[in-house]
């Protein structure tokens, strides 16, 4: 859905993006992470055609963003980290304008109503945007970015300043949009929040792509599992290594993480084998993606390389 090739961007005396190349698949939610000044916002602005890079290519749904920025905007939605709203317009007018400005065909009324309902703003349609709370303003801004049903939604720190409940609602909304086939690229410093919905992770540092990888299992037939043993993990490790369909084994102290090929039956068979082998099994469960640990591992790896 998004293809970036050899993207380079400079500020005077500083290379903000250095030969960045990646491809984001349709329907993915990619967490864009990295330390401050890594080039995340610059990358997002280049993807949206708001900045012209020094070199490279950005293609969104078959449209070259640098050559045809206006045409690409029909396919793109963008929420800046410091967004503004037309304070004197009502919520309905803001949404109606966003729909018309992004060439939504026909009467925008039903689209406005549907978007407002999706963002729980239906009862606020006649309220001036300037009188909304922080959370509601955020929802309206997202509503403006998605009203034209873009193929790609780019969000820069969308959850900053939101309370936990609003963040949870935002995560649910992102999953909903993903289920509709939208591709999302979300930057945030709060990795725990990204864990709730991200399928991929793209790590930038000093303008360079440190790592781009899928989170969790590589495909639907795989599952990520973790087990903990009471004593020495050697027996459990030996059993796992001997069995087929098991990959990516990572042991840390008495905890072992791995991926298992197959469904519930394969998992049940493995559990039975571990119990029968008496490896001292204490816990055996599906692993929640630990973005924080994964991010830190990648950054440490990058440190070693550099």
């Amino acid at each position: 859905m998004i293809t970036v090739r050899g993207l380079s961007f400079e500020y005077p005396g500083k290379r903000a993006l250095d030969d960045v190349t990646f491809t984001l698949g349709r329907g993915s939610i990619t967490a864009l992470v990295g330390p401050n000044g890594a080039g995340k916002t610059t990358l997002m602005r280049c993807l949206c055609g708001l900045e012209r890079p020094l070199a490279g290519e950005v293609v969104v749904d078959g449209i070259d963003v640098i050559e045809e920025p206006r045409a690409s905007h029909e396919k793109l939605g963008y929420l800046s980290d410091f967004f503004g709203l037309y304070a004197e317009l009502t919520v309905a007018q803001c949404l109606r304008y966003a729909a018309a400005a992004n060439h939504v065909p026909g009467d925008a009324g039903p689209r406005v109503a549907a978007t407002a309902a999706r963002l729980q703003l239906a009862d606020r349609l006649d309220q001036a945007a300037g009188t909304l709370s922080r959370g509601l303003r955020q929802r309206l801004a997202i509503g403006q970015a998605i009203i034209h049903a873009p193929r790609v939604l780019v969000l820069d720190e969308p959850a900053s300043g939101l309370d936990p409940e609003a963040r949870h609602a935002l995560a649910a909304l992102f999953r909903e949009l993903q289920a509709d086939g939208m591709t999302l690229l979300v930057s945030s410093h709060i990795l725990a929040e990204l864990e709730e919905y991200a399928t991929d992770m793209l790590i930038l540092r000093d303008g360079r792509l440190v790592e781009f990888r899928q989170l969790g299992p590589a495909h639907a037939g795989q599952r990520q599992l973790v087990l903990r043993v009471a004593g020495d993990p050697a027996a459990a490790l030996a059993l796992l290594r001997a069995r087929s369909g098991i990959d990516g084994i990572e042991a840390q102290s008495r905890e072992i993480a791995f991926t298992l090929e197959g469904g519930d039956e394969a998992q049940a068979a493995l559990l039975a084998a571990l119990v029968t082998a008496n490896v001292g099994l204490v816990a055996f469960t599906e692993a929640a993606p630990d973005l924080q640990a994964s991010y830190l591992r990648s950054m440490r790896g990058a440190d070693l390389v550099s």
Partner: protein
Amino acid sequence: MNPEFQRNLWLEFTMQRVLTLCGTLLALFVLTGLFDAHGPGGMVPIAALAAFVGVAVAWGGHLAGESVLDELRDRTWDQQRMSALDPWSMTWGKLFGATSVAWTGGALSLAAYLGAQREALSLHPWLVAAACVAGAVFVQGLSLLGALTLARRSKRVKTVFGSRVAAALLAIGWAYLAGIARGEDALDWYGIAWPRLPFTVVALALFAAWAVFGAYRMMCEELQVPTRPWVWLTFLLYVTGFIGGFLVGELADPLRALRVLAALGVVVCCGGSYLAAFALYRDPLVFRRLVTYWRAGAGRRVAEEVPVWAVSLALAGVFAVLSTLLALGGPLTVTKLESLGPATLPVWLYALRDLCLLVAFGYGPRPERAEVSTLIWLALLYWLVPGILKMLHFTALAALVLPPVIEAPYRASLALATQIAVCAVFLAASYRRRIVPPATQLPGATL
């Protein structure tokens, strides 16, 4: 309907504003008519024209500029840039949407002006009304162009003061032009006697069209739609031709007319280059991108990226060479401009040196102060240093710093070429120090 126009109507065209403005204007015209001893045909037309200038020109000009500056202040500009609206829809939507109430008041004022005329069938008041409309569009277009120029320079516009001052100045300028148009005598333009008022109306309408087109081109830049500098060059040629019409009017000899136009071309193009270089955003990375695109063989991108001030400076160089060649054809004594002849070459070199300095200061440690630093250096080079040297009787040295262009144009050109070489070394050193990231290669494999 154009969504941008619609949005501006939602924000600006409120019943309260329209009623307040129209009520105030009507009261002004009725009271003027009642208290004027000469009846409605006396002071009412003057009051109506004054109201038009105040409402449609000054206030309308302010509103046109604010239509962009408000977006920057409210941080909604990125949303606009991310929309799928084309630059032309965005331009006219803002230009006529943001000024809709001002135009309503302006239309009422013009109706009062025309209604108060004693000679209903005379063409004159209609021409004055047309000049008013063209003047208002011109000022509003310039104001929008100015605001977009500000937006290119900085996304952090806090004050409305600048656009108000600009609108007031432009209104005064327009009133001055309108005053000229009231004269009865004919204008000599390219040897033809043109009736003054219709000529002014047409000239204003054409400049209004240029102002709106300029705003549109600047909008293209803001919306990342690639543009090439042909329009800027055409505008400079148009200005040269327009002003030239007044200067070559009495010249029957085509060679002399060409000499005047060539010398005028140098002055206009150099003036345009100074204006563009000082007023427009000078992207410090533009030459780095140009080199990258050039190396990658992307000629189209080079044309899109090249700054307009550089292009007009190149055109000024062409005019300077032409002017020098034309001077070989005979004595240079008819007009002051014609007598410039080969002196246009050092005039052009002066401009090249000054703009080299400006670009070099833009690569300095404080690029935001490049304009001020350049102006200080220009004051030193044009005034202070030569003045001190002359006071100390170092006349030859003073002539090296400020070479006289009329007396010895070729020697002046040589001295200025040396100064430019020094500036170029300074510029190249600043570029390498401040612009090129340490230990990086120019990308260029994929364009």
